[in-house]
């Protein structure tokens, strides 16, 4: 193997795949990145077996070849390399990085690293048996939309391993809409956007949150958005520009979440987030460190927030104006869950629909785009005696 590659290109490629390298790899070879040089391209891949990333960078390939090298070390060397060309070659089982360094390329550097043959490195398929969602025809799915969906839903994913299906984000796509749903039982997030009706195929899968995070990151730098997804039985392969992301799926079926969305919440509070959020944050200082419970007393035109902590021996109370005209209601929430929703909702005002002290609140942004629906459910805490 012998090739020349621009430092910036190589760094971009390594930086892309590096997130798939586990900090504690299950097998030694998984700490490596696979380099595959062929036809004026260098392909880099890394995997932690759950998540694999592959990307391509332009290179002048003299001798094609495949080899794996320690990913973090290669990345460190590349990061410190000045903006200049870098030669990579395989010499006697060692990978050698060399090139001109220093001001006006006055110096020279040569680094060699032990390389491992590629045979032990798990194959990442180029394709999958399954349904192909081709976004080419109706135009790619807007990367910003997917990123917003991930950002506003995935935080609600459960970390409780006793309910495995809740450890992921439900991603649904049909010709008419795309949605993401996440819940841990205490709160739930759903973001749904209508699509133009172009047939792109249909999918309903549970994505691990790490995969969502990576997909969001890839789309952040991408120009074209999501071009293609191949949905298999247990894996899904995303294509973003020159990069492919392969992830394990969480086995469904997902919970019947639509059944728990309350339909009879008849009391509505409308309030500015920049009033509500700081108040909840302040009051929660004196909430129990066990429960983070903040009580909310709703009355005509106002909202009273209280918290008390037996451990600290303190009590907090704030009254803020809010648009509320239904009968008085007292309800308690975990302040952390409440604040997280208020921070993610992305609007100036929030509309909270309630029923009683044991029914989930439906929390929506004050304004939504046409064809877009974002809402959160927040379960109360059992009211105090």
């Amino acid at each position: 193997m012998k090739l020349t590659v621009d430092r910036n290109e190589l760094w971009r490629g390594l930086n892309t795949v590096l997130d798939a390298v586990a900090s504690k790899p299950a097998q030694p070879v998984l700490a490596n990145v696979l380099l595959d040089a062929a036809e004026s391209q260098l392909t880099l891949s890394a995997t932690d077996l759950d998540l694999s990333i592959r990307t391509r960078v332009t290179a002048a390939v003299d001798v094609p070849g495949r080899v794996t090298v320690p990913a973090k070390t290669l990345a460190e060397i590349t990061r410190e390399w000045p903006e200049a060309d870098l030669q990579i070659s395989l010499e006697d089982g060692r990978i050698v990085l060399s090139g001109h360094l220093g001001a006006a390329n006055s110096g020279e550097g040569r680094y060699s690293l032990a390389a491992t043959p590629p045979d032990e490195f798990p194959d990442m398929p180029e394709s999958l048996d399954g349904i192909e969602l081709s976004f080419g025809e109706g135009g790619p799915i807007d990367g910003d939309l997917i990123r917003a969906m991930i950002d506003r839903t995935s935080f609600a994913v459960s970390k409780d391993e006793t309910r495995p299906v809740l450890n992921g984000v439900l991603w649904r796509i049909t010709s008419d809409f795309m949605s993401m749903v996440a819940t841990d039982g205490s709160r739930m997030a759903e973001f749904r956007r209508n699509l133009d009706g172009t047939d792109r195929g249909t999918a309903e899968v549970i994505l691990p949150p790490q995969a969502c995070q990576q997909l969001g990151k890839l789309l952040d730098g991408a120009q074209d958005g999501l071009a293609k997804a191949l949905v298999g039985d247990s894996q899904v392969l995303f294509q973003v520009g020159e990069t492919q992301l392969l992830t394990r799926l969480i086995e469904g079926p997902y919970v019947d979440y639509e059944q728990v969305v309350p339909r009879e919440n008849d009391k509505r509070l409308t309030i500015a987030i920049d009033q509500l959020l700081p108040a909840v944050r302040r009051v929660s200082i004196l909430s129990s460190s066990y429960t983070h419970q903040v009580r909310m007393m709703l009355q005509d035109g106002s909202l009273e927030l209280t918290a008390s902590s037996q451990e600290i021996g303190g009590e907090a109370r704030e009254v803020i104006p809010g648009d509320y005209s239904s009968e008085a209601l007292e309800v308690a929430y975990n302040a952390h869950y409440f604040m997280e929703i208020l921070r993610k909702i992305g609007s100036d005002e929030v509309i909270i629909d309630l029923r009683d002290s044991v029914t989930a609140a439906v929390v929506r942004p004050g304004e939504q785009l046409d064809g877009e629906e974002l809402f959160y459910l927040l379960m109360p805490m059992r009211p105090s005696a």
Partner: protein
Amino acid sequence: MPDTKVSHFVTDPVEGAESPPAKAQNRKIIHIDMDAFYASVEQRDTPSLRGRPVVVGGDPEGRGVVAAASYEARKRGVRSAMPMRTAMRLCPQAVRVAPDFGKYRGVSRAINDIFHEYTDLVEPVALDEAYLDVTYNKADIPFGHRVARMIKGEIRSELKLTASAGVAPNKFLAKIASDLRKPDGLVVVMPHQVTEFLVDLPVEVIPGVGKVTREQLRRVGIDTVGQLAASSPPQLAPHVGRRSSELWQRAQGIDDSPVHTERDPKQLSAETTFGDDVHDLPQMQQALEDLSQDVAMRLQRQQLRGRVVTIKVRYPDFETITRSQSHGLYLDTQQPIQQIANQLLKRTHAADRGVRLLGLGVSGFPDMQRGVQLDLFGGFGAVG
């Protein structure tokens, strides 16, 4: 390494077989019971004890009772909780080992760590016994008996000890199952086997059925669980009173009690029984220091803080009293707990009368019930 004996009750479970629809029947509960735990630990650590009858317990000259007996000693009729004197008479060649509870606690923690590799729903019953709910487990293993076998294997390979396990849809059945093929047993009761599993067992397998209840039931012709199941709560009521419907439910194999993790106890306590009555105040204070150390350590481990300290004093004539004091702050450190305990001791007649037992507890934890987070899916039980 010898293979674990596996006994599936009646028939082998068919992997992937249809389970009955009732949700409660779909739980996978494991009861793990270490075999002759203290005695096995001693035999493990002292090779010369292997193969010999070992009795772990206090001095036969004092009031000691048997804490554990190896299987060799059990063959001679030695049983747990039997006075040491009786045990040594039954089995004079037995090697007596003084219990080292610090060591057993350490081993118990290691066992607990193994459990937590599979589930956090662990209910410790004693140092050598626990219930696990593995309906959903961290290893994503769909079969309870497979989880049980893996846990037994890890206990064997990592700790060189054997455990018996029962796998069943509830705690009551799992407990009976673990006891059936001791030592090193694994007994699986599938939901459809419950009736057959119970039918011929004696009624004493039901917790709470002791000698008295057994006799009451025998008088009306009920000896087996099957016969109990065939009666009805109204028929039983005149004989066993309020517990009739509970007993009848158990006889049907019904037990909905959840696996309680140790998160929400009412009181955390420890106590010491002295070999001889103690009349010396410094010695009592020393005991309270040790007890407060133990209680504080457990409070911290469970992230609990309580504001009520209670001591228990048993005088030489067996009269037992408690004294409590509330404190303004929530406590979880040794020093204030010990201080309060010492003050409480002064409010008893311990110094004049002497004591045979001292206990120390901390209670009055913040009301956790008030802070219970409600669950969106709580209404329809398990999800997934």
